[in-house]
């Protein structure tokens, strides 16, 4: 049982900052990010790895943080939506494109969707239409019908300097 287990120390880097966490070993990465680190931009949509609202990058790879026990991130580098832009007023090209193209409506899937798009463009800088559709297929959006999200990804990769 989770509450009976002793807390352990987990070391990782979150959005560039080193963290030492004292956590239950089986705590979900999602809860640790939201509750222990206050990074509430990562959302919970289903808790079973279907919707992708809780997507974050772990060592550059897109994962559903609701399915990751925190013990697995020992030594890992994590990027959440709060770490996507370099900081300051300037947004990441994907974020900027989401605003311009109408890629965000209610916004609850948006953090995960932005990370999925960032991850896709890191792997395939010039994706085809099919690459985009498949690359985002793990992230559900109920508002947009995805068309404006596709537009945003295309607009983002038209701009220089897109990097995860």
């Amino acid at each position, binding site marked *: 049982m*989770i*509450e009976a287990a002793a807390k352990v120390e987990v070391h990782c880097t979150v959005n560039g900052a080193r963290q030492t966490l004292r956590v239950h070993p089986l705590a979900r990465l999602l809860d640790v990010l*939201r509750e222990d680190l206050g*990074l*509430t*931009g*990562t*959302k*919970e*949509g*289903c*808790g*079973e790895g*279907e*919707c992708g*609202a809780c997507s974050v990058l772990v060592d550059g790879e897109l994962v559903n943080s609701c399915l990751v026990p925190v013990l697995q991130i020992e030594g890992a580098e994590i990027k*959440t*939506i*709060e770490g*996507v*832009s370099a900081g300051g007023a300037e*947004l990441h090209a994907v*974020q*900027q494109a*989401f*605003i*311009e*193209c*109408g*890629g*965000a*409506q*209610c*916004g*609850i*899937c*948006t*953090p995960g969707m*932005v990370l999925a798009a960032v991850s896709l463009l890191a792997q395939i800088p010039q994706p085809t239409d099919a690459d*985009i*559709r*498949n690359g*985002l*297929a*793990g*992230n*559900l*959006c*109920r*508002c*947009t*019908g*995805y*068309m*404006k*999200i*596709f537009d945003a990804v295309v607009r983002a990769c038209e701009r220089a300097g897109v990097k995860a």
Partner: protein
Amino acid sequence: MLTEIVGKPVPRKEGRSKVTGAARYVDDLRMPGMLYGATVRSPVARGRIRSVTFGEGIPWDEFVVVTAEDIPGENAVALILLDQPYLASEFVNHAEEPILLLAHADKQLLERARRAVHVDIEPLPAVFTLADSLAQKEIIWGEDNVFKSYLVDKGNVDDVWAQADLVVEGEYSTGAQEQLYIETNGVIAVANPEEGVTVWGSMQCPYYVHKALLKLFALPPERVRVVQCETGGGFGGKEEYPSMIGGHAALLSWKAGGRPVKIIYDRAEDMAATTKRHPSLTRHRTAVTADGQLLAMEIEFIVDGGAYATLSAVVLSRGTIHAAGPYRCPNVRIRSRAVATNVPPHGAFRGFGAPQSIFALERQMDKVAAAVGLSPSEFRRRNFIREGETTATGQVIREPVDMAGLLDRAFELTDYEAKRERFARENAAGGVGGVKRGIGFASFMHGAGFTGSGEDYLKSIVGAEADAEGRVRVLAASTEIGQGTNTIFAQIASDALKLNYDLVEMAQPDTGNVPDSGPTVASRTCMIVGKLVESAALGLRQTLQGAGLLATDDYTEDDWRKACREYVERYGALKSFSQYKPPPGVRWDDEKYEGDAYGAFAWAVYVAEVSVDTLTYETRIDDFVAVQEVGKVVHPILAAGQIEGGVAQAIGFTLYENVVWQEGRMVNNGMTNYVIPTSADLPPIRVHFEEQPYQYGPAGGAKGIGELPMDGGAPAILNAIEQATGVRFTHVPLMPEALMRGLSKDA
């Protein structure tokens, strides 16, 4: 002078906070000393509660426990009727009905405790289907299981049947559909006798929650405050349910002496316990002449309302009024009923009854066309309603309407006629590689705003205020739930005042601070509330002009700022309010269900192209074109986004989203088993707007668009599948298993 902002794709007001993760939804908020709340629900569909026992191994003295006996006011969710309790005390009428509430600071322990509460219920016979409810197998609500019925009677259908060249009958049905907003229902409440009740949450209609809490706590309006947080989708699913969960959290907080209590449903609970689209059954009997003129339509429309009345009467109303579609027909009779079953109450979902009745109608129109020997398009062309003609409720269409023009445009964009011919040829030859193809369409309309006298009863109010720096805030309870309220209201107010878009903001919907602009439902936010935003904003200017601070209508931003500063220094706050008044000449008879049902309609023709794999029974939609006339388009990207999103939900409704029931419970209540379209499933959704300004609409003539795109997808797709397969399917969702059965029967 600034150029117009309406019609331009200005950035969404809260876009930046949403793409950076900074936007705060209710689950992102924490308060000192906060407890978490959970709900103990009925495991059975109908029965009498014998006892509630608290199991071993839980420190119960640490828990806040609320039962029906703890309710300070009335144990009923105030909406239309007062038949639904907040907490069942003696009888339960559906599975998942709330019986008892628990709160504790430790979420893990709370969940263990919830499971340790045992409710012993003596089961009573239950009713799960429309047919059993109509047959009164058991009487489970009122005297006859009927929540509401309507009769629309135009001309006299009875005189027609004998002399008609052709009478065509058909029966159609639709299943339940889950809204599946990605943010589940959630609230935080602080409540105690000294400070009153405050609820923050994810919701569409803060004043609905406000009204419900007044009754639940027997408090005067000023002691209850409801605040909308950033809301992660609604689609109707957060129209009524926030009154329930908000009341629950408030009851727990009240019992806990005012400690904040947060309740966030997990996905399984949200899907199992909260509202869904009403399942429906429609029967059509249509009389036509040999040359395809509609003579009479007799329509029976029945929806399954679930265990309590909730919004079923109004869902039924909209479905009823839309049941005869955009056609001229001299004799129409529509009988409709909403009936009770022992499932969780069905509720609002985008389209609100219209997608169900329009599905039936547009399938029937294809059937009648085939019976007359006309193509589906030629048959419709001969019957499309035109300006000056009347709808089923006898409403004279006073705005220019050109359904034939929309059809032409949609066909041109899809190359419909050529494809229809080619697919017919290829399918006759057995298809291509086992794949058969089809193209089909639906033509329809959707009324904006509350039905009939509804807006008159609501008497919505919007305010606008300007501060000493000339910044304008719109005061309205209309919520941003993704559709773009913040942005379009700011556009409308900016244009009305000829100010920069950045100078106008929306106040957070908070019943302590904004007037009641009505619920965020019924495609009314832009057309009805937007008009009030425009006039409230203009009121600010008139006030400044009346005070002699603005000389003319031709002022600069500096003139505006200066005038506001002087006004505020001299007189204090600069505010203006505007209240709804019906457009002239509107006539509605609630008794006869006759007259002007809606101020304006949006009109549309949607075309779907499909491939059906006759080996795997997989249906793919290859192309989807949505052509609609919606009045002035306020924001081209947001408007297209509304249509695309609605079409995607309609595609889900048609091919993917199947609620599986067992003994009145949804058993596939998770995203793994209840499937919505992903980015890999959808076709290109191509959106085309025609703009015919509505003379009483805001911003140069906008109408409503929110629900429209939910209406046409299902019939267009099934009409296309009929061309592909030759089988006349009559139920959605059309799952592969049903497709297989249909095709095998055919073979």
